């Protein structure tokens, strides 16, 4: 595929852009479909072709290849919908069906609702829920809308479900949170990569290319309770072994919820065997002694009795990582975490232990080594930098910091005192909806909480208790279908903007097609709401202009974009430049050259006040909902390659839907035998919160004490109906990844079938 960098084509004639889904943001080119291509019903509008880009190196997975289908989704929303409510004499509310409406009517309804509710119950009675898929411009404008027009403290976003623990851990340790503080391609040179709770071979397949080098050197270590496609990359655990394929690493298959113990044991071995990089620790790290003492209690044999990984295996991994560390002459080592370990009530602690391990080995802040969190959502990185998080202002600033408030208020032209304080984090926010002191109205952007939030049945109850639910979406998602007002908005290939990839690289999303008639950009919706609510705060409509404002608002912040503009990003790409990673301050370091961006953070110092990374001692508590005699099986949740997040997009792509049409319960045959469940049998999983049903899928790739379900579907097989909404005390992130269930055959389904 010939690379055509930086082709910002005029609207309607195609463009070089990026995939609409995950944070890898694979480069792709969209060109108008040749007329000779037969129209398969859903009108084909553009052709997807992969494009050379450092994260995907020309590769695309099935989701990317088929992404153009989204543009022709048969149930695409193109007209606003409104639901009427009737109140009878007794005060009982009857909710009608959603019906088409004009933009004027729909927005009028929203504005009247907001005005009335805020007048009665205060500004915080209107809440906002954003998403990690929104462009930087939209995320920024949404935060600005909440803080300057609605003036509500209650704004948070679905990134709280994904990145909050990694962010909390990295901020505490390094003073900055950029998922990967180094380019992804750096992994290629390492001797060891420890991957905890990430199934990137399934969630972002082209990324696997960056592991080729470490696999050749047998240095890939994957920690996962399942032998996932990613774990299989280690070559470990494949039966027979007769093929004689050389090992490419190790797979540790711990008891769900005990990854932290694995890390504590690795730390223990590092110190017990004298493998720590003491020189680096002395020069660049504080808090070392606390951590050294804390892990003295986690010798490998004790860890084994908790996490189920044999002591010698733990020692082997610690030695492998140490041998790869620069202090011991290795090419470098990386410790990477994903949602598998972060979506836990001890997620921040686990991330902290992963960082502690990386620090003990002297990895962060060194070229060719480091710690990173693998961001999931398309703009999961940028989405957490520009002010849609409950406690944040643009530039990754803290909303409680007076200087930050003054700076941002200056850019917005408002009084700093008028900005609200920190609001409730996502799970707490959702729980509080429609409660006596909680919000009465909710605006949802780029999120489908009915499928993606934990304890989803309860979330549905909360949404129904609202007086006004407004959802902006492309398709009638499960959440949209429950709304009072649905606003049809533009998507991906219909809009301009920027995204920030998992590496902190700021990239351009470009428009390739004209949006359907009737569909508006959320930027327009925000401006319109502001105007109708009587605000004088300006809300530009041009994404480039919004970006310029965002850049000013971020100036001096941790995530400083002030040296960037759409024009500079386009020029860099057109010139085949190396890409621009934040921070990119407007003020150049020396001379007249523009700041080149920061591909690798922390090389000289960490972003903490004293420049040293902070080790923090943590301990293992265990899952909030642990196995017990009436729920003796662990449930872990995750993803499949063919679907993205709540599936609102990918379930509408016929090819993906055909490949994986619905959920299943992955279970070991040994568990199946015990429960009398054959492969394909209908199964019922019951947790303390409810039950779900799906067919069993036998697999020997999972522990016999654990079942796995992907979460991309709604209805009876929607696993988030039974996941727990217990949250991490530091990050507020829910424990999606582990809870206790009873597993039983589901004869009821059999009868129906």
């Amino acid at each position, binding site marked *: 595929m010939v690379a055509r960098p930086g082709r910002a084509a005029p609207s309607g004639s195609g463009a070089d852009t990026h995939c609409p889904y995950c944070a890898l943001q694979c480069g792709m080119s969209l060109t108008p*479909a*040749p007329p000779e*291509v037969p129209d*398969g019903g859903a009108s*084909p509008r553009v*052709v997807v072709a992969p494009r050379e880009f450092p994260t995907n190196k*020309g*590769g*695309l*997975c*099935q989701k990317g*290849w*088929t992404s*153009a*289908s989204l543009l022709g989704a048969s149930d695409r929303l193109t007209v606003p919908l409104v639901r009427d409510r009737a109140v009878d004499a007794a005060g009982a509310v009857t909710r009608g069906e959603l019906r088409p409406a004009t933009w004027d009517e729909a927005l009028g309804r929203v504005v009247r609702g907001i005005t009335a509710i805020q007048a009665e119950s205060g500004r915080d009675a209107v809440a906002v829920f954003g998403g990690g898929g929104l462009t930087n411009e939209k995320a920024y404008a949404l935060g600005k809308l909440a803080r300057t027009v609605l003036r509500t403290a209650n704004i948070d976003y679905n990134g709280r479900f994904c990145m909050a623990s990694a962010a909390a851990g990295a901020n505490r340790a390094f003073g900055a949170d950029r998922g990967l503080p180094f380019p992804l391609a750096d992994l290629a040179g390492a001797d060891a990569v420890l991957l905890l709770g990430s199934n990137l071979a399934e969630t972002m397949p*082209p990324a696997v290319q960056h592991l080729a080098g470490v696999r050749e050197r047998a240095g890939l270590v994957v920690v996962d309770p399942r*032998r996932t*496609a990613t774990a299989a990359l280690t070559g470990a655990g*494949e*039966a027979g072994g007769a*093929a004689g394929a050389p090992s490419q690493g190790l797979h540790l298959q711990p*008891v769900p919820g005990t990854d932290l113990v694995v890390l504590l044991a690795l730390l223990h071995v590092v*110190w017990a*065997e004298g493998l720590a990089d003491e020189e680096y620790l002395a020069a660049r790290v504080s808090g070392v002694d606390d951590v*050294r003492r804390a892990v*003295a*209690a986690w*010798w490998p*044999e004790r860890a*084994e*009795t908790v996490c*189920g*990984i044999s*002591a*010698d*295996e733990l020692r082997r991994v610690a030695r492998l990582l140490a041998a790869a560390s620069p202090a011991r002459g290795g090419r470098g080592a990386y410790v990477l975490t994903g949602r598998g370990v972060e979506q836990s*009530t001890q997620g921040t602690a686990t991330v902290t232990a992963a960082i502690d391990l990386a620090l003990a080995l002297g990895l962060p802040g060194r070229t060719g080594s480091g710690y990173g969190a693998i961001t999931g959502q398309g703009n999961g990185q940028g989405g957490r930098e520009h002010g849609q998080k409950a406690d944040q202002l643009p530039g990754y600033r803290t909303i409680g910091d007076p200087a930050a408030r003054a700076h941002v208020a200056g850019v917005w032209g408002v009084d700093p005192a008028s900005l609200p304080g920190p609001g409730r984090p996502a799970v707490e926010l959702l729980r509080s909806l429609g409660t006596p002191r909680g919000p009465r109205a909710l605006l949802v952007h780029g999120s489908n909480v009915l499928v993606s939030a934990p*304890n989803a049945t*309860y979330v549905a109850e909360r949404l129904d208790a609202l007086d006004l639910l407004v959802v902006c979406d492309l398709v009638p998602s499960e959440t949209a279908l429950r709304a009072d007002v649905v606003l049809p908005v533009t998507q991906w290939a219909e809009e301009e903007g920027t995204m920030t990839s998992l590496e902190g690289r700021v990239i351009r999303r470009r428009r390739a097609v004209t949006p359907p008639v009737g569909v508006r950009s959320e930027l327009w919706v925000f401006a319109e709401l502001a105007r109708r609510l009587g605000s004088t705060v300006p809300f530009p409509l041009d994404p480039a202009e919004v970006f310029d404002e965002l850049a000013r608002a971020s100036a001096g912040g941790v995530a400083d974009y002030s040296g960037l503009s759409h024009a500079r990003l386009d020029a860099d790409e057109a010139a085949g430049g190396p890409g621009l990673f934040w921070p990119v301050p407007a003020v150049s370091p020396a001379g007249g050259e523009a700041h080149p961006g920061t591909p690798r953070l922390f090389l000289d110092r960490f972003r903490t006040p004293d420049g040293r990374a902070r080790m923090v001692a943590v301990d293992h508590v265990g899952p*909030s909902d642990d*196995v*017990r*005699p009436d729920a*003796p*099986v662990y449930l872990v949740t995750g993803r499949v*390659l063919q679907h993205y997040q709540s599936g609102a997009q990918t379930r509408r792509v016929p*090819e993906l839907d055909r490949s994986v049409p619905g959920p299943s319960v992955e279970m*070991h045959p040994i568990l199946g*035998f015990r429960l009398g469940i054959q492969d394909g049998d209908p199964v019922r999983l*019951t947790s*303390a*919160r409810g039950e779900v049903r799906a067919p069993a899928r036998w697999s*020997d*790739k999972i522990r*016999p*004490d654990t079942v796995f379900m992907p979460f991309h579907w709604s209805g009876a097989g929607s696993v988030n109906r039974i996941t*727990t*909404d*217990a949250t991490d*005390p530091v990050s507020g992130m829910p424990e999606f990844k582990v809870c206790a269930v009873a597993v039983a055959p589901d004869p009821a389904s059999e009868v129906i079938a």
Partner: protein
Amino acid sequence: MRLRPFRVVVVGNGMVGSRFAADLLAVAGPDGTHRARPLRVTVLGDEVHEPYNRVLLSEVVAGRADVGALTLPSTGDERAEVHRGATAIAIDRGSRTVLTSDGAFPYDAVVLATGSAARVPDVPGLDPGPGGTLPAGVHALRSLDDAREIVAASTHARRAVVIGAGVLGLEVACGLARRGLAVTVVHGGASPMDRQLGPDAGLAASRTLADLGITVRTGVRTREVVVHGVGDRGAVATGIVLVPDVGRSPRDAGAPGARGGGGSGAPDLTGEGDEIPADLLVLACGTVPEATLARTAGLTVDRGVVVGHGLASPDDPDVHAIGDCAQPPEGGTGLVAQGWDQSRRLAALLAERLSDATSHADAPAPARAARRVRLTDDARPSMALRIALDVGRSAGDLPGPAPRETRPRATAPTDRPPPPAAPTDVVRLKAAGLDVVAMGVCGARRAHDPSHRTLRLTDPDAGRHVEVVVAGGYLVGATVVGAPQVGADLTATYTRRIPVPADPAHLLLRPVAQAAAPASDPTHMPDRTTVCRCNGVTKGDVVASWREGARSTADIARATRATTGCGGCQDVVCGLADWLRTTDPEQPVPASSSVLEPASVQG
């Protein structure tokens, strides 16, 4: 009103004492919370060291752990003061004061965590000299100083004898062997670790010990320690004299461990003793709870300080004992897991007392912790079984199939439902080269129970033995030698009370993973085998693309998208193309090229 602080004196600054101080301070919360009395904690430790991980002393001896890695957290909380090198001399229960040589520490509650001492066998040569010192060359292993002395001695010693083949004895033996010493372990029981290992498991362990170059002598008694020189300066141990232990069956005959030993594979040891020379002698003969303080304070002491379920002495509710010095109703296991569990429980109980002291009447009593399992059985049946049955019964009391949470739970860990106590009786040997784990019902001397079903896989020649005991659908005991991952899996099953498989034989081995279809043989690869996972392309899809005219990997990629994701299937697709070329060379090529367009254009 300022409340007088609630004073807790902890005697012992070891693994359990130091942990308890931290647990109590954590669970009590900062002063002033819940209208509780302020808390003051005093820790008295007789060693001058900071608290350290005693469990790892054998690792230090083995050279597998750096001494610096043993130091445990020491509380920095300003509500606590820690006195090191402060030996408690007496508890004056009248004045509620603990006395040291230079101080008196008043208490509202005193917690004994004095641990245990090494047992020194009563044999000639080990008579305590002046000041209770052992002869030169003889060491117990109970303190950091002991470990350092053994390490120092091992650099000059060539032959070591370890008396006692229990957990510590074997760890030390393996550790010294790792340092290159010729090691003999002598043991009174019929097989090593016989408290945890039955005869077959012992045989497997003996085999591995022999492979490590360690001589094991079982069924023997140390008649004397040979000491040359006399007096407190010159007494040096040079070996031991063994005699058959008439009280036990000399089952070791023919055991692999006897191979190449001190010249006595046969149990012919009558009459003359058998002298084993040694320049380093380590005593690993068990421990004796340190209960002197309690005894002199007039409290009931049996093997250890007797305490009830609330970990308080039956004679004085303000005196508690935890860890190795305590004798709880279920018996002490000598394992730190039990001590840490007691620490957590006692911290919770005392924290309750803190708030009860001020707010008994008006505040609703905090939800009591889950009913403590009653552990009264002298025969020590498996802890897991008892807990499982107990919890099972309590769940059965509730209407409906499963208890439901109707409200979302608060996030604070303390608000979580207290988890039922996990079993703490898992014994995991730490010895380089010898993997042993035993739990619950195990050991040579366990009583027969007709409700137990025992399955064994015994493979002594490979040093492997796996034994599981199942009752009521649960794993109630297991013994694993030489199968570390199976041991780890069984431990997880045991401690979490996971129901066992329909056929418990599945517990004996790791399930065999399904063989992946070998890519080198496309003929036998089923059509539905996924070739390219990134794009969901099967072998059938590749073959179909060939039939429709694709002739190269690039053609196949264009037609099916195989290889266009992570590229990991490149070799397989090349292989399929080669195979198709040889087996299917004459397929007609369709004229239309449009079918080679990627399916994505269907958008």
